[in-house]
């Protein structure tokens, strides 16, 4: 073999040695990397599931907020319509009152004329001609007196109408309680999402990620509402078919009352037994009510 070939072989061997040395150094790093990937995989899966879970809540949140907006808009318009009606009725009431005032003036004139006649009668200066002269005027003025009753009745009717309008406003204002419960439900969901994301972020121990977690905590905290509001997550649903729901509840309560008064059995046990067969998520129907109470009889 030539010297050159041997030198070349030695050089290659040294390169190979250097490669092995590098390999020896890289292997622990690669092992560490594999271990890290192995460890991080469930965490990434958890993040993925959590993000999917939280994203699935988002449409519900926006749907609930949309319902709140719709409900407040409806109630506000309803109140404005009623207030418009109240103003219109107040205008009518005001003009009726003016007519009433002029009728009262007629009434005053009537009594003045009448008193003049009585005065003449008392001092003996009364004559049939005086009576004839004043009779037609008195008759005309008496029509004003008769119209007073009609005007009073019309005003009474208008006041009742305004009272009913006030009741309707009270009904519409209840939307404030209903929507505040719905907003509290949304706030609760946002809190849940934030807590879940924060707990995920806190699992990363890297300094940079810890910093991110701290920043997240400072900037994305869900604000507490101005007071603690216990909520019905489906509060806004109570605005839909409210009258029908109340009707069915009334029937249920009426039947329960009849049952309580006509039976000597323990009502608590009976209700508990009969409710076992009912699907609690369903809205009440008369059939269900009948079923509930037939089981008791």
């Amino acid at each position, binding site marked *: 073999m030539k010297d050159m070939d041997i030198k070349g072989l030695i050089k290659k061997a040294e390169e190979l040695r250097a490669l092995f040395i590098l390999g020896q150094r890289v292997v622990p790093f690669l092992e560490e990397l594999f271990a890290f990937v192995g460890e991080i995989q469930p965490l990434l899966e958890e993040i993925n599931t959590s993000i999917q879970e939280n994203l699935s809540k988002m449409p519900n949140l926006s749907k609930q907020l949309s319902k709140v907006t719709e409900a407040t808009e409806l109630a506000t318009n309803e109140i404005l319509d009623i207030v418009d009606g109240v103003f219109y009725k107040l205008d009518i009431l005001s003009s009726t009152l003016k007519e009433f005032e002029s009728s009262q003036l007629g009434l005053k004139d009537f009594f003045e004329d009448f008193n003049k006649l009585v005065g003449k009668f008392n001092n003996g200066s009364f004559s049939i001609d005086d009576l004839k002269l004043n009779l037609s005027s008195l008759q005309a003025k008496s029509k004003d007196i008769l119209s007073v009753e009609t005007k009073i009745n019309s005003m009474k009717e208008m006041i009742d109408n305004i009272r009913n309008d006030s009741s309707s406003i*009270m009904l519409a204002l209840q939307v*404030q*309680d209903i929507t505040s419960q719905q907003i509290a439900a949304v706030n609760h969901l946002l809190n849940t999402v934030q807590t879940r994301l924060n707990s995920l972020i806190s699992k990363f121990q890297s300094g940079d990620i810890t910093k991110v977690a701290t920043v997240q905590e400072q900037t994305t905290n869900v604000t507490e509402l101005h007071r603690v509001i*216990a909520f*019905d997550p489906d509060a806004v649903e109570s605005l839909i078919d409210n009258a029908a*729901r*109340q009707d069915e*509840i009334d029937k249920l309560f009426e039947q329960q009352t009849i049952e309580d008064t006509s039976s000597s059995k323990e009502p608590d046990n009976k*209700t508990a037994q009969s409710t076992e067969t009912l699907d609690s998520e369903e809205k*009440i129907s008369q059939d269900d009510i009948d079923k509930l109470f037939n089981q008791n009889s």
Partner: protein
Amino acid sequence: MKFLVVDDSPTMRRIVINALKSFGIEDIVEAEDGQDALSKLQTHKIDFVITDWNMPNMSGLDLTKAIRASEQWKNLPILMVTTRGLKEDIIQALQAKVNNYIVKPFTPQVLKEKITAILKAGEK
């Protein structure tokens, strides 16, 4: 006759109280949750309770159960006024022995009818 109006929403308390006053009922005590209601029951001679269901600290349902469990107040008329209208809710209210139940939003007329019905039933 003294009424106790229990609701965590000040707006709702005001609406109920306004309605009661329009019926000529002036003797009214307010409470903001079930616990507050129980303490008001101890300090006032209450004849009728109108309560919401969803309230912090103690719900209207728990308040009803506490009232029915008490020897002193077990026959006190209770009217539940709530947004909850599921069958499960009504059954729970019936089991807790609520005298009557109104789903929000309600008209003052409905409130008056329920109060009258409960009082009439109590007279029998």
